[in-house]
């Protein structure tokens, strides 16, 4: 089963404010060869945009696990919880 189809099953109360920030896009472009965030995020929130030469962040699909905050080798992801009441709302948990 494809990840996109699985993510379609998740319930969100999407905030218009983005709760994830790449601190310095230059770090992704110049220092980070491996770009592990494009793999370790269970929701594939992070993707390398070859045209714009930056990591694109689909914060709307964030499952709020916190992996990116710990996994980014350069500490370059400023990940916080969404504002109270927003974000993922599990059906089963």
């Amino acid at each position, binding site marked *: 089963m494809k990840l996109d189809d699985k993510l379609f099953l*998740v319930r969100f109360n999407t905030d218009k404010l983005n709760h994830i920030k790449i601190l310095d896009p230059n770090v992704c472009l110049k220092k980070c060869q491996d770009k592990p965030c494009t793999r370790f995020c269970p929701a594939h929130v992070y993707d390398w945009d070859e045209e714009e030469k930056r990591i694109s962040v689909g914060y709307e699909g964030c499952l709020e696990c916190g992996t990116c905050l*710990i996994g980014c080798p350069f500490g370059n992801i400023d990940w916080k919880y969404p504002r*109270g*009441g927003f974000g993922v709302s599990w059906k089963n*948990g």
Partner: protein
Amino acid sequence: MENFDVIIVGGGPAGLSAAISAAKAGMKTVVIERGDYPGTKNVMGGILYTKATDMVVPEFWKEAPLERPIVEQRIAMLSGDESILAGYRDPAWGVEPYNAHSVFRVKFDRWLAEQAEKAGVMIITETLVEDLLYQSNNVVGVRTGRAEGDLGAKVVILAEGVNNFLAVKAGLAKPLKPASVAVTVKEVIALPKEKIEDRFCLEEGQGATIELYGDSTAGLMGVGFIYTNKESISIGVGAILEPLIRNHWTPNDLLENLKSKPYVKRLLQGGETKEYLAHLIPEGGYKEVPKLHRQGVLVVGDTAMLMNSLNREGSNLAMISGKIAGEVAAESIKSGDVSDQAMTVYETRLRDSFVLKDLHHYRHMAKFFEDNPHLLKTYPKLFSKAIKMYLTADGTPKKDRQKEIIKMALENRSIAGLIKDVYGAWRALL
């Protein structure tokens, strides 16, 4: 600013247990939860332990929304398409006083929050706590994300879950490292209850668990799991983040890898995936337990790294740490002393309980597996080969076969290596 005796940050099992015990001791208690209601942000594999829960809400099983009492626990070791199985079943676990149940946290935590409310706890939802409030270095409350959202408290209990933002800000914990968390994903797959009971050989309403090692995580340090619910199966896999990154796995590919294993596939066949979930599990063990207290603050549950991964116990450690923290908060407030010194009672009681005793007992385990990554690759393969050779009836006399097996084992691992592994495992696990 409204003032409380005890503010608890986070409405999971640890926070709600703390709230119940503080309120029962007469404290004006509030739980601040960022979700729509307690439960909607909460994820675990799905096993709730009876004894710990009973200590928080006596005879909870008569009312709480539970899935199935667990009567059988299996362990599977996967090697390629091969599997080695072991299990234990006791029908007595299917009746009172039980041992454990599968649960869904959205339903269960909501119910537990209702029990807290019955005990007099106030629950504020859809509210994120952003920081602690200080007055000349003393913690005096919390700052929330709401306008004019400061709330005063004599004691704040941090039950914010694995992501320990506030504990770090308060100087109690360090930021988590990729080697000390397991990134875990899970699917809830709907199946008719008769099919579940047939496939797992269960009496009506009873449940089983399977923990899967070896190739269930493609040899990464971690574990797969399958738990039966009333009308669904939860299947998940967790791996330590550091090797997952190093080996270029994605969490979903790891889960799909597990689902495709012959032993697993047949259990799930025909099921419909209802939800896909992700969560971190704190795996730092005893050596990474943060400072558990300071003046006016106690740290509980996942935030305190209280997780016994070998026995997949977490919810019970959370609830007992919460219960003790609520009691200590109440006692300190009543005696008018919430100093760091007064709060050490919390740590002492955790050390006297199974919570820190178990973590201490397994204190070498994380490093043992970290230093010996071959264990999860070599042994499942070696055991599978050995058992296959032993069980294959091809006319070879058994005595010759046994010699072949020993020869094969020693080709895969030297005698010195075997001794080192056994000694290491003995030291780490026993």
